[in-house]
């Protein structure tokens, strides 16, 4: 889906004029296609979900880098057990897990849920899990079923709602 820049209506890709306000969407879509990079990684075939991963606590954290192409932001977060991804950092003492806050990346407008997904270190490598988000989590363009762990590789393309993020480690 694409979003009309005049009236905000959701339109199918390929629509030439916005059905709600009549804006010419052709120009907008041309630009949208140019923004998406990292094509060589973007369409890896879907991995099978990881069966019963054993979550490991690392003594020394592993740096994970997230690159958000649309906002040109780059975040590096140390992964010891898990990293939550969303747009609200819950600042309570019990929950000291690191959090990737996508609010500065227009997360709200692009459909990122408050607590959208989870990254974990397991005996089978790094895994990603969708936490029942409203607009879904996509791994290399494949819609992940909620609450199922999937293995992640460096360079993979993640999409939270409509926000594209690349992950490197």
């Amino acid at each position, binding site marked *: 889906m694409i979003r009309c820049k005049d009236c905000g209506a959701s*339109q*199918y*890709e*390929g629509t*030439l004029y916005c059905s*709600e306000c*009549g804006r*010419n969407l052709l120009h907008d879509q041309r630009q949208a296609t140019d923004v998406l990079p990292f094509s060589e990684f973007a*369409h890896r075939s879907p991995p099978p979900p990881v069966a019963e991963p054993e979550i490991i606590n690392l003594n020394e954290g592993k740096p994970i880098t997230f690159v958000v192409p649309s906002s040109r932001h780059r975040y590096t977060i140390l992964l010891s057990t898990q990293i939550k991804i969303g747009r609200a950092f819950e600042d309570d003492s019990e929950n000291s897990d690191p959090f990737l806050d996508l609010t500065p990346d227009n997360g709200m407008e692009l459909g990122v849920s408050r607590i959208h997904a989870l990254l974990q270190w397991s005996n089978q490598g790094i895994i990603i899990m969708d936490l029942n988000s409203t607009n879904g989590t996509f791994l290399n*363009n494949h819609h992940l079923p909620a609450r199922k762990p999937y293995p992640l590789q460096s360079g993979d393309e993640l999409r939270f709602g409509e926000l594209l993020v690349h992950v490197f480690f």
Partner: protein
Amino acid sequence: MSSESYYDALGLPTSATLKDIQKAFAALIGKFSEESSKVSNPEYEKLLQAYEVLSDKTRREIYDSLLVETSPPALTLTVQSSRQKIKLTDSAQTVYFLLEVIPPTHATRSRRPINLCLALDRSTSMQGERLNCLKTAVELIIDKLAPEDIITIISYSDRAEIVTEPTHIKNKNTIISHIRNIQASGGTEIYQGLLTGIEQMRQMPLQNYINHLILLTDGHTYGDADQCIQLAQKASQWNIGLSAFGIGSEWNDLFLDQLVAPSGGRSAYIAEPTQIIDFLQDRIKGLGIVHGRNLRLKKNLPEKVTLQYGFKLLPFAQPLELEGSEIKLGNLEGKGGVSILLEILFHPQEHESKITIPFEITAEITEQNNQQQKLSAQIQIIHANNPPAAEPPQDIVKAVRMLNMYRMNEKVWEDLEAGHVGAAATRLRRLTTRLLEAGEIQLAQQANAETERLANVGELSEEGRKRLKFGTRAMIGQTMKIEDTHDPL
């Protein structure tokens, strides 16, 4: 083998009788009386062959059946799409298709006689200027028709009256005196007028004519709308085309659209009585020169796509009825080609793939004895990872732009019917902007006036609704016609 057919060799039409064949052969064979002129002369051999085949009933039948297949196609179908390659994503995507059916450039312009019926509303509300203009218009129309054409005139209110039974145009004076005697009274019951008109038309051998009924009304029909639509469907099967024009603002535009849909005819709004003549004339123009009759598009799309919307752009702008297994496109008239625009939704695909979209239009070819011709074309749409950016064809962009304004206006009405006055007002304001951008000043002013009315009284005027609906619709046809300079007829 020579491209000349056996009929050509004998100088005869394909409809020639056995006697014709014998006569022609006897006359032609005389040329080869000298023995020397016969030896290895291809002309002579061809003549013998032709006679041998065509004088034998069984062999002629076989030959005829082959002949049809080798004759050049009467009509051609071309298809363009807004994109050939679409990105592999997880959401559905829109692709537009522009279909054009055109007659061959060398097509003979032989005109067929028209069997025309005018069903005229003579309810009380027609009294005065409307009826006077109508009478004048009909008299002028009769002047435009050819002597061999047939005209039937019906006037109707709550019952129908035959003004003139099917009559040759050459008896012009009788017809005109009948028209002048039409008196206004009563309500509007369209079914009566329609039924009587069609019954009268059917007294003529319909296969020899281009049959068309034009209905004029200025009022809502009461309780017989469903009957009317059923009758319109039957009429289309009998090869009777239907056009419907509404005068003033007190009629039901959705009903008239439905009424003309089965035959692919035209419905339009006549704002001023003085315009009646223009609309009638425009409708009659080219009516007798029909290259293909009863064009219909088969709906056999693959499951991976959904047909969202269809609209006829040429020869006149008209929404298409998408229900059923075939979409009726009307006749291919002397005015030029038939163009339609389809909006098709492609469902998300998991892998790179190719979807073939087949299009098949069937038509009866007037110049070939109403023989059926199937026109096929197909387009492959590829789901790919990184499709290169490609510009959609300008004709598609233009048509979609205009069509979108028409559809925005339709949605204003839908919003209102659902009670969403605020949404309707917002939409109408946006439409005003788009109309201004397109240089449609008059329509923009109308839209603006209706926006204000909506803010003040919470509703639109019937007149404004029709002006906007048919105004934006006419805009589509005009845009497409600018580059489409077919010779006027």
